[in-house]
């Protein structure tokens, strides 16, 4: 009775999983596929993939390097990774909550610039004490992001404008307007970027002495974790989370069930915008201290794919952000030790995202295989009886 394909099917079911835990297993399987594809690429370039992956981990602070400069160690590398991961966590959560409601927030980049710029102008050059300035920066970021989100949601609700197009338009308008103000008022003539903000408003402490090390301390990372926890609660326990999901799945059914579809969509865009705003201030006033005019941060677009890799769940987004930033952060070290081009980081990330886009298909296939095997088993049992 046993056919040749059964072994393949069993392997697929084991790798991708069926039922509980399928999401995590699928994500891991996609990561595995991407690593295999990346290895082939590296072999093609004549490099040892194992060595390459090891040096990525070394660069990201998961694995000790051969030697370190003064005041640096594995811990400082890891803290640096966390520092760059923080805005990505906010940004991917921002995309995830909009996706939950069936909306596609492609405006994360624009919201990041807007909130980063507004907070920079209002507080970055002020002489407020750090204890006051930093919380205010967070609040301003939150508010300005939420305002843009509200506007996009309201336009969608009131005028039925396509939120993707509106978001794209906002991206460019914001980028150009901010660039105009930077170049006329706040430009640093040597770097051609906006003037550096003061240390009192910065959300990351750089070169902070801890023991004999000097490390980066991202002050808003705890806030990112809190956001993850809050969103987990919202999605699993709160009424609003359920309404978001219902509207995302079927707008008409939600309306018949008495959910105010318009209000729910606007709410989700407001939360999404607020999170994007946090991403903006933690990026432009944490990881960096100035804004480059006319450049939309690619982080805002990558966040869409990261949210997808994390299956739009809060913890998924958190770990997916960590993974993607590990690759991009660790590659600088790999590039220098192995002599590979730095661009390979985004390429490996791209391949990873490509495979994760096929995740739903893999899940479907695994379920189908499981069903087929089950049917065969039943048929075999029946055959045995007869």
């Amino acid at each position: 009775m046993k056919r040749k394909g059964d072994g393949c099917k069993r392997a697929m079911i084991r790798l991708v999983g069926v039922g509980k835990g399928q999401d995590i297993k699928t994500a891991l399987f996609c990561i595995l596929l991407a690593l295999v594809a990346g290895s082939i690429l590296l072999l093609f370039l004549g490099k040892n993939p194992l060595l390459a992956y090891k040096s990525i981990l070394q660069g990201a602070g998961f694995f000790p390097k051969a030697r370190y400069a003064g005041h640096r160690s594995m811990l400082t590398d890891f803290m640096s990774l966390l520092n760059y991961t923080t805005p990505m966590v906010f940004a991917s959560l921002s995309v995830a909550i909009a996706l939950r409601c069936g909306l596609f927030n492609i405006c994360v980049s624009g919201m990041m610039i807007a909130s980063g710029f507004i907070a920079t102008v209002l507080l970055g050059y002020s002489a407020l004490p750090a204890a006051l300035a930093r919380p205010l920066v967070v609040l301003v970021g939150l508010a300005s992001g939420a305002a843009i989100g509200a506007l996009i949601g309201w336009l969608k609700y009131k005028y039925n404008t396509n939120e993707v197009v509106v978001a794209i338009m906002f991206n460019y308008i914001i980028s150009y307007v901010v660039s105009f103000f930077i170049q006329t008022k706040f430009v640093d003539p040597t770097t051609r970027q906006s003037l550096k903000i003061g240390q009192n408003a910065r959300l990351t402490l750089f070169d902070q002495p801890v023991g004999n090390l000097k490390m980066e301390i991202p002050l808003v990372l705890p806030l990112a974790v809190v956001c993850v926890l809050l969103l987990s609660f919202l999605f699993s326990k709160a009424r609003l989370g359920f309404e978001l999901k219902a509207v995302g799945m079927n707008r008409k059914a939600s309306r018949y069930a008495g959910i105010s579809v318009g209000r729910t969509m606007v709410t989700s865009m407001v939360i999404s915008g607020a999170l994007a705003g946090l991403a903006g201030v933690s990026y432009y006033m944490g990881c960096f201290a100035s804004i480059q005019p006319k450049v939309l941060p690619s982080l805002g677009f990558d966040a869409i794919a990261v949210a997808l890799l994390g299956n739009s769940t809060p913890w998924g987004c958190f770990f997916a952000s960590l993974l993607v930033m590990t690759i991009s952060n660790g590659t600088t070290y790999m590039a220098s030790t192995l002599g590979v081009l730095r661009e390979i980081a985004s390429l490996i990330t791209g391949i990873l995202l490509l495979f994760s886009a096929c995740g739903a298909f893999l899940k479907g296939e695994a379920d189908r295989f499981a069903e087929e095997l089950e049917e065969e088993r039943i048929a075999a049992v029946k055959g045995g009886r007869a």
Partner: protein
Amino acid sequence: MNSIVVDGMAFSLPLFIIAIGGIYSEGSGITNLALEGFLGFGAFSGGLAVALLGGAMPPGTSMYLAFLMAAVGGMVFAMLHAVLCIHFKANQVISGVVMNVLSSALTAFLANQINASVFGKASNKFMLEVSPRITISGLSRIPVLGGFFTSVYPFEFIVIVVALIMGYILYRTPTGMRIRSCGDNPQAVDAAGGNVARIRFGAVMVSGALAGLGGMCFAYSISTNFSPSIYAGFGYLSIAAMIFGNWRILPTFFACILFGFARSGGYYLVTKLELPSSYSDLVLTLPYVTTLVLLIFFSRSNRAPRALGEIYDKGKR
């Protein structure tokens, strides 16, 4: 005054051809946010072909090779989107975004790698020949309209010819009818004996070819090289033009013209009023602001293809 028309047309027409690509793909029911990636990959392929073979060709002809290879490159890359959306049943919006990320990563990597290993230089650019500009002597002296015949890029003629052919195919032939039906009612196409998956696959490939062509035009008109700066959002802008044009070719043409002329008019204004160059940033927002305002007025009557973004399921009623 002529400069408004000249620059406006040089910007609008590539945008238009990319948008037609979008109409083909979305008209067949496959959401296409990947135009940005397609146009970049197309421009990369064209640039690569010129870098490899352009030296052996008589001067002035490498441009046509570039356009041909750009279309082929865009088409090949689009097949990835098609496979993901049609065979792997991926979410089409997400697949589109992934294509854009992948395209910019891949072209940046390949351009660096090929420049380093084949030509032995550290650069992420492929240089192109400067495109000739054609001025038709009699017609260019007509007041106002003369601008349409002054310093025209050769690609503008290519775009117009290709656009006419694509328009004819989409609205006047059985193939076009099938493509459009796939976007509105794929079940009906299936019942009539058409192969939905194959038609959609073809439509996405066409969109890749057209976007690649458009990307190459931008590479010639804006920078005369291929570099990662080609990813400047023209793909997204043409998506906006397409939606604004209600997924139909003629209204989309006017939307593209509007974008191009708003942009060139703004630049003209900056130079005319002798404003500092930083004011051009404000002017550059004009096409986007116009779109936004017009969208607010016209969105109520907007009608996307009915089956847009849905994975085709034979059993669905």
